[in-house]
């Protein structure tokens, strides 16, 4: 993506997308952003539906296993 014409679509990280880098979903978090609870805190209790619509309590489903809990933007776009 060398075209200068499209500079506003390339963000500070050198990535180009169909919408300008000023769009909210492309903006990075504030510099001092804390990203939620700190290490050492318990992950909150939560019950969410899975892709089949089944309600899953995260800590119950995890049992006594370690886990990675990933937050992503969207599976659609």
């Amino acid at each position, binding site marked *: *993506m*060398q075209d200068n*014409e*499209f500079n506003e*679509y*390339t963000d500070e*990280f*050198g*990535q*180009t*997308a*169909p*919408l*300008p880098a000023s*769009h*909210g*979903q*492309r*903006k*990075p*978090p504030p*510099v001092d*952003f*804390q*990203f*939620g*609870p*700190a*290490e*050492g*805190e*318990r*992950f*909150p209790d*939560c019950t*969410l*539906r*899975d*892709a*089949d*619509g089944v309600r*899953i309590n*995260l*800590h119950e*489903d*995890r049992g*006594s*296993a*370690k*886990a*990675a*809990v*990933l*937050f*992503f*933007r*969207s*599976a*659609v*776009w």
Partner: protein
Amino acid sequence: MTQLVELRDAYKKFQAAGVKLYAISYDRPDELAEFAAHHDINFPLLSDKGSRLIRQLGILNTHVTRDQVPFYGIPYPGTYVLNEQGVITGKLFGRNHHARFTGESMLDSALGEILIGEDEPMASTDDEQVNITAVWHGGGGTVKASVVREIVVRFELAEGLHIYDEPVPQGMVATRVEVTGPEGFHTGDMRKPATHTLELPELDTALQVWSNQVDLAIPVWVDDSVVSLLGEQAEVDLEIALKIHYQACDDQVCHIPQSRDLTLRVPFASYTAPNLFKRVAGLDISAMDSQQLMKRKIRRGLLRSPIGGLRFLRKMASDMKKGPMGKRRGSS
């Protein structure tokens, strides 16, 4: 999207290690189901309807306003790593949302050690006393835009030897790695293991040292100027040069400082993108109909914010036409 598709391939490593994996977004269960079916996702995708958990945690992307109808409610992407008691032991978040972490990084964080895969590109010095192996870690040994990998530099030191972390007194050499790649290749801050302290009372000083096996991990990623090398030359590997400086000593003798060169060659892999993107080199367009699903997201969003939402959509349509994936580029 591309990160989840990669995680599908890494998930067997999670299962082997007994670590659970959950991926959460603001999407509805039916949207997640459609994605899972198209991409054979084999780990749980969970729907945080109304972004309640995202807000509760405090990771809502507040740059996205209610008027930005299809996008409102997204988090800043990242991962919490939990121990057996559900306590957070690791947080993998970053300012650069393109530089998303691999499943391997999540697993390493959960296990507290770096698990090198046999499929990962590597190069080694084959020294007996101080053996150094550089590994391109994560993502199945490939490079692609949008997911960060790590270069792991593993020192295996003969018994009794140690190497130094900074700071060191003048005349001694701390362990240091220089990484060089093509334009558009980026490196982050090196992750180092804990040192132990070596007291030198006769010199009235204390040094920070490592012994046995030492893993230094450097986050690495590429931007679109590297990915655009693809296309006609899709067979070209990414070539990364490493220069590793160290000084090994034992309790009696300090050896001469050394520098070693290693080269990693890493194949490109395509980035999985929704069918909202133009088909270009390096993009693998999903068979899922995101256009249809986006229309539904927009309809639902307009119920929430009709006037501001319509204004946003008009601006978005115009921006997309002008943009690099839009008509102007295609017709030029």
